[in-house]
């Protein structure tokens, strides 16, 4: 992972189409000042399940694979996160540690915000907080769909007598 020089959100062409990024000017200025851009080559982990939550990752470019793992090493892919999504929010706000492992599927460009600064930012900018609320709501919807398909969609194994 290597850092690129500071790039401003204001220069980004893709902003208006992205739920989180389409913030009002004062919030965007504040966000710009607390974020740092990082690049993750394909196959590199952004964070690992169980690690202390140190910040959020706004996906600018590329796709990220989110998965969970059992104690015995079995891995289950939750979903693929696309550009425009924000990862690690629930870890920073509630869990305290990342609940999933995030791996770059392409060469990804990510805006990283440290946890302490994120919390301050969200408390100060209600609109940004509401964007996060909407994103979390979407994430929750996807997770419930996954629960539904895993818990109810499976065909039963043949009974052993």
């Amino acid at each position, binding site marked *: 992972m290597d850092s690129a020089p500071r790039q401003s959100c204001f220069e980004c062409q893709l902003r208006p189409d992205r739920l989180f990024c389409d913030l009002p000017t004062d919030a965007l200025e504040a966000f710009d000042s607390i974020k740092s851009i990082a690049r993750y080559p394909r196959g590199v982990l952004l964070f690992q399940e169980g690690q202390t939550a140190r910040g959020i990752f706004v996906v600018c470019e590329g796709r990220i694979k989110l998965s969970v793992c059992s104690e015995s090493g079995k891995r289950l892919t939750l979903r693929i996160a696309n550009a425009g999504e924000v990862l690690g929010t*629930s870890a920073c706000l509630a869990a305290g540690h990342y609940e999933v492992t995030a791996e770059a599927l392409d060469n990804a460009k990510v805006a990283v915000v440290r946890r302490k600064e994120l919390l301050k930012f969200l408390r100060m900018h209600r609109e940004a907080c509401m964007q996060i609320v909407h994103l979390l709501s979407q994430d*929750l919807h996807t*997770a419930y769909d996954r*629960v539904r398909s895993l*818990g*109810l969609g499976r065909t039963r194994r043949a009974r052993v007598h």
Partner: protein
Amino acid sequence: MLSPYGLDIIESCLTCKMRADRIFCDLNTGALQSFEAIKYATAYPKGAVLFVEGQAPRGIFVLCKGRVKLSICATDGKTLILKIAEPGEVLGLSATVSGKPYELTAETIDPCQVNFVKREDFLRFLKDNSDACFKVAEQLSDKYNNACHEVRSLGLSHSAGEKLAKLLLEWTSRNGESVKIEPRLKLALTHEEIAQMIGTSRETVTRLFADLKKRQIVQSKGSTLVIRNKAALKALATSG
């Protein structure tokens, strides 16, 4: 003094003693006063349905007292219990915020006090209170964490025996008993409901409990389950 369903209704959030321990309820005074004005304190008996999966969102239900079963249904009628909500949790939150239908069905398993807030009142409240917004983000994060946990449990656990062992251990860590050598659990759910939580049949759950008792891993004392052999239960939980 008579009260509905034997509940002692907490009329005012401002004087509620349990506020400090609850993420959403611990709002600043100004926000709390606004919340007081829009909430309706209601009592429900055991077995009441607060809302149904797929229903258009009417508003949020803040659980003050009692517990609520949250479940998801398949098209063939099979039910999966996602979790048992405890006091302090805000139900119907993501649906109310997004405008999408309720994701889950909520049914009381105890007599409950619930503070209901209409959707439009709640959205207006969030617009005027950034502290409340932040608390909503915290609550949703907590729910998401839980859902991932469920996905891990359903998707990675091999057998029903493993899932049941995991569930029992999780319950002991929630009620603080896990530190004891022989943790105790008050089983609030029927075998059928436990089966719905782990995605198996009632017959399997009954058989698994009988097996655990035969092997002296657990013991029933009335409605209390005592875990006699924590190590063995832990081994069963990770055999996948």
